[in-house]
Structure formats: C-alpha cells, structure tokens
C-alpha cells in the first residue's frame, strides 16, 4: 500500500499580480503514514499553510510532486478521490459553516457525494456523535461557541469519511476551552485510526502530537518526536519558535545540574520528573 501522503521535492511559487514571485516551499520532501498524529509548526511565512493546501490538491506543485494514497495531485481526474481521503479544517470557524442548522451543515458534504438519504442521515449522526455535538443537531451554527463551531466543521469533514484530517491553525481563534475541545477531539479521532495533521503556533499543542515537523523558509528544518525536537532549544529560537515556559524551565534546571531527562514539555511530565528526583534525593541516592 502506498504511503497516505508522499511529498517529493515540492516547490511552490506564488505569483502575486505585479509583485515579485514568492517562493513559499523550496524543496520539501516528507512522508506521512496512516495513523500518524503530526504537528506542523514554523514561523509566519514558513510555508505551513501552503504545504497543508497541497495535501488535498487545493494547491498544485510548481515543481516536484505530491501523492495522496498513491494518487498524483496534478491528475485532475483524481481530484475528488483525493479530497475524499483528505479533509481540511481552517482557522476561522465562521468562514466554514454553510447551513443554518448544524445537521444540515454536516450533511452538506455527503449530499454532494449523491449518497442515499438514509446513508447521509447515518453519517451525520455518526460524525456529530464523534465530535460530541449530537445534542446540538438542531441548533443554529452561528449561536455556538468557537470550539463548538470548529467541532461542527470537523464533523462536516468526518461525514465524508476521510482517512486524513488536516487542521490549518484550527485552534488559533479559539479560547482556552475551545482549544481543549478541538485538541481532545483530534486526539480521540487519531486513536480511532484517523491520520491527523495539525498545523499550529502553540508549542504545547505540538507537544501532544507524536511527530513534529518544523518548517522554516519553505524547508523542513526539523522532523522528529516532540521530545527530540523541543530539546533543541537553541535551534528553535533561530526558527522563530519559542519553547513553552515549562520546557524553558526544565532546560534551566537541567543546566543547573539537575539530572532531568531531555524533552520535558508539559507541567505533568516536569512535575513527575521533579517528584522522582526529590524522592531519590531523600533516599540519599542523589546529593
């Protein structure tokens, strides 16, 4: 079976009217396998959103190629097959909802697939249940909170039964509660087998994914498990990223000489590590 997403030597050049061309992606190669939970991070202008739009053929390569489940995104006849496999959720929840009732909004995609009504109803039901919005099925989307709107947007994509969900800064405009809701939803989806690509500026969110790809100047600068990527504190600053406060604190304590493991990213991990050290110390195993 081919990889779910395969990007080879991808270059993307924008040609804004009159202005000089902008090289947004400059030789990106990467593979995303089925079942992965991947964060893509990078500074403004690093090429994150451009890359994401290649994952379901919203953009086509200037050079190089992108294959989704083996299908070349430049092959126009494969367009619908590609978009059924990879669904996108964007930043602004208000720009993505098209209907005046939640369940109609979620039904929009499957209706366009020309599915029979019972099948559509079943998919809507299932998608709303997965994002825990079933009780809001008859509500008006514009009266929901930001986090609820994004969950409805996710349900609309899920109703297409995609293999992969790409979220392009889908938590950026949400409050902390909304951010938690979306993050919990995608983590759960991933456990159930959906491949998730989460583009974010929030390092703590990236830390919850299994793999972090850092883009800089249209190239892949770092790619690895979060503990490995965030352990490279000096590299991050040069890539316009800032480690989360907890990671910065862990780094500082480590430089003090505390034998803390590398790659501690959230409060829970650091608290655990410190409590273990303290227990060791009181047991006189450490000065």
């Amino acid at each position, binding site marked *: 079976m081919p990889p779910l997403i395969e990007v080879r030597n991808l270059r993307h050049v924008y040609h804004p009217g009159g202005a000089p061309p902008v090289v947004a992606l400059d030789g990106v190669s990467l593979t995303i396998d089925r079942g992965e939970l991947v964060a893509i991070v990078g*500074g403004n202008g690093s090429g994150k959103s451009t890359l994401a739009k290649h994952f379901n053929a919203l953009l086509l390569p200037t050079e190089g190629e992108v294959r989704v489940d083996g299908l070349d995104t430049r092959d126009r006849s494969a367009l619908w097959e590609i978009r059924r496999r990879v669904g996108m959720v964007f930043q602004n929840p208000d720009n993505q909802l098209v209907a005046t009732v939640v369940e109609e909004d979620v039904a929009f995609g499957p209706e366009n697939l020309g599915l029979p009504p019972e099948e559509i109803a079943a998919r809507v039901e299932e998608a709303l249940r997965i994002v825990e919005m079933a009780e809001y099925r008859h509500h008006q989307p514009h009266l929901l909170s930001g*986090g609820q709107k994004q969950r409805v947007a996710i349900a609309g994509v899920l109703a297409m039964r995609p293999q992969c969900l790409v979220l392009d800064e889908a938590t950026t405009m949400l409050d*902390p509660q909304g951010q938690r809701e979306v993050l919990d939803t995608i983590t759960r989806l991933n456990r159930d087998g959906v491949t998730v690509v989460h583009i974010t500026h929030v390092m703590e969110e990236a830390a919850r994914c299994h793999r972090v790809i850092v883009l800089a100047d249209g190239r892949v600068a770092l790619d690895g498990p979060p503990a490995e990527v965030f352990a490279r504190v000096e590299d991050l600053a040069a890539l316009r*990223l800032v480690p989360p406060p*907890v990671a910065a604190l862990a780094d*500082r304590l480590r430089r003090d000489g505390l034998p803390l493991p590398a790659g501690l990213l959230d*409060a829970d991990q650091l608290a655990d590590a*410190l409590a273990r050290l303290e227990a060791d110390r009181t047991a006189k195993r450490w000065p």
Partner: protein
Amino acid sequence: MALIECADLTHVYLKGTPLETVALRGVSLSIEAGELVALIGPTGSGKSTLVQHFNALLRPTEGTVRVAGVDLSDPRADLRAVRRQVGLVFQYPEHQLFEETVADDVAYGPRNLGLSDDEVRRRVREALRMVGLDVERVGPRSPFSLSGGEMRRVAIAGVLAMGPQVLALDEPTAGLDPLGKEEILEQIRRLHADHGLTVIFISHNMDEVARMARRVVVLSRGQVVMDGPVREVFRHAGRLSQVGLGVPSLVDLMQRLRRRGLPVREDVLTVDEAHAAIREALGWSSSAT
C-alpha cells in the same frame, strides 16, 4: 478620578428583536491612569463589547461610561477628543491596513485631524519608533511586504499616531508565531513602561497574561467575576476553570508539585520565579550546580 469608569454598564445587542443578546450586564469597573490590565474570559463573555465602550464605539444600553470624568452619554461630550484619548486596536488589525506605504498608512489618522504636514511626519516617525520600527527603513515599503508581526506593529502605530493616553488591544498576539508574539508583547510593555500609556489588553493566553499584566479582570457571561492583582487571580484555579479558563502553565506546574508533596509556592509568574521557587522549596542550593 479614575481614567476610565464604567458604572452598572449593560449592553444589549439587537434589543427588541428575536436575536436580542445581552452582552454585558451591570459591569462596574475603574481603571486608573498608568495601569496595565489584562481582560480575560471565554468567547462571548463580553470582552470586546466592553473595550468598545471605552471610546464610545458602542453606547451603553444602561449605565454610564466615563473617560477622564466625561460621561460619554452626555450629548455635549466631545467624542472625537475621547477617541483620540483612547486608542482601540482591534483583532487582526493588520487586515485594516490599506495604504500603499507604511508611512501613509500610519499618517492616515493624524492627517484627518487636520495637522500640518510637519506634525504628521513627526507623529509617523515617533509612532513607528514606539513600536520598534524605523521610518527610514519601513516607511516607504508596502505594508503587505512586511512579516505578520511587523504588519501588526504598523497597525498599532497607526493608533499611536493619534497620541492616545490609553491603548486598548483586542487579542494583540492572536495568530502570530511565537517570536512575533514576543515582539508585540515587548512593544506593549515598553509603551506602558517608557511612554506611560495606560494599557488594557484582551488575551486568551494565560502565560502571556501572567508575564504582562499587573491586574486581571475576568469576565464571564457579561459580568465581572474576578478583578484583582495577577498573582491573586491565578491563585483561584477552581473558579477560573468554572468559567472555562485555566491558569498559566507555570502555576499549573507548581500546583502539580504541591499535589505530589513538594512544598513550592504557587504564585509564580515567570520562568525566573518558578526556577527560584523550586530551588528554594527543595533546598537545591548552589551545591546542586
């Protein structure tokens, strides 16, 4: 006399229609000159509605708003003067940039005040300097050729060029990359510390609130539910979580350490403070280094 004073402020959108929404209910709040206040609350809690009353962009349905003693509902109130006094920076303010050059964009406000060309030029230079940008370098450029963080600073400069005493910013760091956030926060800190501006900012990021603000006002469902010094507010993790908010990640860390039996203090705001608190509580003095 407080610089900004809201008394029993209620705001109802679309009153008398089926879509009637009460955005603020009975908000009373005083902000003194020179304060640096964070306004936090979940989406829909009324934060943006509240700050838009500070310069009479929105009018109270009930209650009063006074700026430097002037009741904004008074028909004799000079609202143009109030809008110069209180500068409002909206969410994603760079979407409102429109001129061909940075200098023209920042000059737009002062020109409308009917100031002389020399004075306009002086204000543009000064406003750009206040956000850490050099008029010689960026002035002639198209605002759209700048980075996201720079564009936002240009938009803030456009408000500063009006010479406000108060700057109210609605989610000034939203959507910027981590370094862009740092740059904006640093500029805001300087505007407060070096230029004496009274600053009110809305944020969803508790880490940046902890680092920036002296005072935190918490809104929930259109009401002020907490208002106090930043350390005091973040002591109440339970109440914050009830209204859908959290505590800064370092406070969260300290609370977790305490639950694991380590006697650290909880009210830390910065990495430096957390570092000192851990070393102090655990007796890791210089011997550990």
